[in-house]
């Protein structure tokens, strides 16, 4: 079975240069990559870092489904993507997506599809750490 398209959960820093190299192929006329970084501000609160926790077997299964869907829907040549777990600091790479296609339109569309679906479907949780020393699980506040 082909290793591609490929999605991985990574507990160590994502080597985006190595992932980009995996995508190289002569048929590709377009490559679109997306990097999600840890930002220093969320909803007005200064953020110092994030902790990501994943239900890894299901996150990898669902991520694999998403990158496969992207290839099929947009006729991309292939997709490689990785999402971090563990403790990240501001500026760290949290998620990486690379798509190659014959033409740019498919590559852009497939890349957008992958990040939107990852955010909506992966069983991953994020705790933000704030400058005042507090921390919160995002989307889990009591309403």
């Amino acid at each position: 079975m082909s290793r591609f398209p490929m999605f991985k959960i990574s507990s160590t820093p994502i080597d985006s240069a190595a992932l980009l190299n995996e995508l190289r192929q002569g048929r590709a006329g377009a490559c679109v990559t997306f990097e999600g970084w840890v930002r220093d501000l969320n909803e007005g609160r200064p953020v110092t870092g994030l902790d990501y926790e994943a239900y890894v077997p299901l996150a990898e299964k669902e991520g694999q489904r998403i990158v496969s869907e992207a290839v099929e829907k947009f006729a991309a040549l292939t997709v490689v993507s990785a999402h971090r777990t563990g403790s990240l600091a501001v500026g760290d790479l949290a998620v990486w997506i690379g798509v190659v296609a014959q033409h740019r339109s498919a590559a852009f569309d497939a890349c957008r599809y992958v990040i939107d679906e990852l955010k909506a479907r992966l069983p991953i949780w994020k705790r933000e750490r704030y400058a005042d020393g507090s921390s919160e699980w995002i989307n889990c506040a009591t309403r």
Partner: protein
Amino acid sequence: MTPKTVHIQYYAILREQRGIEDEKLVTHAATPAELYEELRVRHGFTLGGDRVRAALNGEFAGSETALRDGDRVVFLPPIAGG
């Protein structure tokens, strides 16, 4: 209804509020929704059942799926990837 033994794994806010990562439990709950309600009352989980999804045996499952003896259950708090 005969009791069943299920294996439960906790993640994120539920892991912290439960204080452990996993446990075996004997329950009379018929569905993941009933099991979550039992656990929520016992452990004071802050998330209501309407905000938690279930996975059974490594795959997403409806909260009204029938629980079976030996099931591996994971309750999924609201996700926040990316």
